[in-house]
């Protein structure tokens, strides 16, 4: 092959390439074009092969030209192939699309009861303040429920404890968690700092605001030189952690046989601006717990040295706190276990 022949073939290959229609080819056609030019007998293959017939100088001059043509052909093919693959992917992805708005498929959902979360929250705050958890039996005797707490048999204060007594046994269902105060002091030496959460029982007809079974969190601190001021400090700290830092408290005198002085603690109503609403019985304040300085008579019945030790105790109604926190108006909901009720309480919301 002469140089002139070669150059002629080059020009015809180049023009054939231009007219091959790579730009519009589909994948099939693209392969056909590739084989036509680069196959064993392809025009470009032939052109590259016939370089060997030329002189060294011609080779040196025309070789790169031929390579250039091949490279631009490769580029053209690759670019078209990439374009076709992209388009194909896009169509396939489009075809794969599912309805993402269908409901999630989830493992079954379950949650803790709102009384559990409320009780845990109360106990958690006290735990941060150094209170350990203490427990006692639900079935109790007169001594732990009453006598040791300075409520002798003929004391009118027993009237406010409508008691379930057991049949044929000298036992009763505890009417308050204060029993655990006594049990804790019987088994441990001061200093003490405990909360005693749990179930209590009152012989009381059940209605929207009364339950024969409910929960309390009792607290007890015994130490040297503890006074009413510490009670105020601890309970105010607790209430502000439970209900918010701006919570206003009110301590007013009251009476419990096992504490002296005694107090009932109110918080400023958080449903109304103090003007009165049904939640605060139109007083602007909501009663939230009872408390007091441990009556030395209780220490005496336990056998603690009442000259050395002093303390304070308090009791919180768990249902009452849960009702306030969640806006539940009827106490019976807590014991009906209606899923429509329980589903409304996510423990992370407390």
């Amino acid at each position, binding site marked *: 092959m002469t140089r002139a022949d070669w150059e002629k073939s080059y020009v015809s290959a180049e023009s054939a390439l231009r007219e091959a229609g790579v730009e519009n080819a589909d994948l099939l056609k693209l392969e056909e074009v590739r084989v036509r030019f680069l196959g064993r007998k392809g025009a470009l293959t032939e052109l590259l092969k016939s370089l060997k017939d030329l002189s060294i100088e011609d080779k040196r001059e025309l070789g790169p030209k031929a390579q250039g043509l091949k490279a631009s052909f490769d580029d053209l093919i690759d670019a078209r192939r990439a374009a076709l693959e992209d388009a194909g992917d896009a169509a396939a992805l489009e075809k794969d699309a599912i309805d993402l708005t269908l*409901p999630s498929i989830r493992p079954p959902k379950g949650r803790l009861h709102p009384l559990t979360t409320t009780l845990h929250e109360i106990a958690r705050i006290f735990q941060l303040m150094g209170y350990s958890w203490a427990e006692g039996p639900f079935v109790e005797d007169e001594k732990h429920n009453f006598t040791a707490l300075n409520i002798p048999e003929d*004391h009118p204060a027993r009237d406010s404890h409508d008691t379930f007594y057991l049949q044929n046994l000298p036992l009763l269902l505890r009417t308050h968690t204060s029993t655990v105060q006594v049990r804790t002091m019987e088994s441990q030496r001061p200093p003490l700092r405990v909360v005693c959460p749990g179930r209590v029982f009152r012989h009381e007809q059940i209605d929207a605001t009364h339950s024969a079974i409910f929960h309390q969190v009792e607290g007890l*601190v015994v130490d040297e030189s503890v006074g*009413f001021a510490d009670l*105020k400090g601890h309970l105010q700290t607790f209430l502000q952690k439970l209900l918010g830092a701006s919570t206003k408290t009110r301590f007013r005198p009251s009476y419990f046989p096992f504490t002296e002085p005694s107090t009932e603690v109110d918080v400023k109503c958080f449903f109304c601006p103090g003007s009165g609403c049904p939640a605060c019985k139109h007083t602007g304040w909501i009663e939230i717990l009872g408390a007091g*300085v441990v009556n030395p008579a209780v220490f005496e019945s336990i056998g603690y040295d009442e000259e050395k030790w002093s303390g304070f105790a308090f009791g919180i109604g768990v249902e009452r706190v849960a009702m306030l926190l969640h806006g539940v108006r009827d106490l019976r909901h807590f014991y009906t276990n209606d899923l*429509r009720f329980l589903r409304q309480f996510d423990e992370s919301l407390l």
Partner: protein
Amino acid sequence: MKVSYNWLKEHLPLELSASELSTHLLKIGFEVAGRERLGPAFTGVVVGKVVSKEKHPNADKLSVCVVDDGAAKRTVVCGAPNVDAGQTVAYARPGAVLPGNFKIEGRKLRGVESQGMICSRAELGLPKDVDGIWVMGEGPALGADVGALLGPADDILEVEVTTNRPDCLSHRGLARELAAYFRKELKPLGGGMMESAEASFPVTVEDPQACPFYGARLIENVAVGESPAWLKTKLESIGLRPINSVVDITNYVLHDIGQPLHAFDADKLNGSRIIVRRSKKGEKLPALDHKTYDLPEGLLVIADGEKPVALAGVMGGEDSAVTTATKRVILEGAFFNPVEARKSSQKTRLRSDSSYRFERGTDPEASRAAADRAAGLILQIAGGTAAKPVEAAAPRPARRPIQVSAGKINAVLGADFADLAVKQALRAIGDVNDDGNGVEFMYTAPSWRHDLLTANDLAEEVGRFLGYENIPYRMAPMSAKAARLTPVETESRRVRTRLASLGLWEAYNYDLVSEKTLLACRLTAEGQPRVAQPLSEDWAVMRSSLLPGLLKNAQYNLSRGADAVRFFEVGKSYAIRGEEVDETWRVAGILLGPVLDARWQPARTPRASFYDGKAIVEDLLEGAGPIAWAKLTEPGAGKTPSDPLFHPANSLRATINGMPVATVGCLHPRAARAHDLEREGAIVFDANLDWLAGRESAPARFEDFSALPSSRRDLALVLDKATPYARLEEVIRGCLVPELQSVLLFDVYEGKNVPEGKRSLAIRLTFGRFDRTLTDAEVGAAVEKIVAALAYELGASLRG
């Protein structure tokens, strides 16, 4: 206790509004639960005289009257049939406002100008007496304000008095408390006894301990009738019904100064004598409440020569009650031991204003003065002559002074009140004897304060009067040990959060159930503690298992449209053991319905089966030790009170180290039927939380795993249907192939291509070593060994 503010002011001049008073009462420990305003609900109504009355020209039923209200004569159209000339009436001038904010204005009625209105009692919000207008009768001056004539308006407060303060259970008592708080003087108590004739009347007190003071005074020639208006108004204002003058006076004195009194008709007392004694067997008392009480032996009674005439301090007898026919009255003023009064009231279930005060403790030194005051009022209102009282009194122990100091009181309160302020507060409520030498002083409480016995009691008084709000907020320093939970609480938190994450909702049920509930679950009430006086049969028995409650919860929710129910509860079960009651913390649960929340992909939502329940129990017992499973009927499974509720064939007990700790299974068909669950396939479980909490636990130890690839072989084995899968695993493990890493069951099949009475179990065996990769030949040999053992032990053959 109902308190009339006007009545209170008779004892202590106060310039506060009723609402301000309530605030002060609250600050010193008396909650005011309610407040009601009594009095005229109208203004602008005056006394008028009907000067003339004529028929209305345009209306048959109306009259045109001229009313003189002292200032002017005006024309008033009136519709009442009973209006007439010459009557004194309540006349509402134009501008008057009647109850319901009804404003009176001059207006034309059928063409005649009416300037105001002649009122009926009902229109003034007063109790109605006759139909038509209120005809007042002669007396009041024309133009006088009708509201003022009815007496001043009053506020009635519902004051809550705690059980330690019986001294405040009267108007004077509460006034005394307020006087101490406000540092004011109580007004002197008026009345008292005016005359006393000599008389003797035998009074015997058999038990001076029970009745340290008894006074009886004979008043003769009384004329018992209706009480005067002031007395009736007072009693009515605090919700009491007037009866007759003598009874009303005793009630009045009770609510005025807090001393319960009783008046007997002396002529009805047998033998004209009084004995304070214990009731005898079989004695009865027909009481003032028209009921007859069987008196248990040993209650303190007032008796005449023959029978009890009053239950001491609680209620008098009907037979000796003072009536309008009574001529001679015996007036009792006594101090009964609070314990006696309470015992009598409790044993007879009879409560009265009187017992309420006696059982809390009255003022032993006020009995005589109160009786004197009542006697004086009787003479004044019902006439008659009074004899000197006959008294039986035991010497009373002197009140013990309390040694105290401001420092001690400040220590209890954590406050820093000045010495002077502390003493001043205490002086207001008792005697302070301060010799001036040193910080300690002596305080003696008055006779009406039974509650002041210790320095703490006095600290409360000081705190109340100087204000709880003036005690600082302080944080006791931490000196107790670091806070910690109990093992049961730690475990119950783990269990609760684990079960909630496994998709179970936590339920709270009552510890008391009915016998019927237990029976519906095939459980028995026998051996269960019972409450002596249940609220109802639904609350009679203490539960032996948490499951009956959970079954009810499932039934409840299904009937309200739920299709999946998954509940657990952490609570106690109870059993009688000798003289004690055993309490066990348990955790139980129920599962039924779809296990996955994927309703729109039904293929993915199988219903809960036994194996879901088994998984939950395995989770609960994780880390507790190797579980041995046994059917409830097998020896070694042990027994629990819940067993009869489980399906006997399809339930398993988990035993760990020989201790039965949990049960899981299908519900017994009968229990299911009783709860409408027969088509639900409910799965129940029950575990002993106390055991879980008490088990030994140690941190998990890491075990290395092989970095080399393992080899798997799948086998499909045909076995007798009756051969439990557990046997298969047992035999495989029994081959002791050390390279066997795991056995995984991945298919259970029976039907086509598997002979009748057989089933095919497909398992995947995984083999491996730590030191090198196994060769095919080694794995093949191991599989052969296993297949041979299965064939020999269980008759298993490889399928197809």
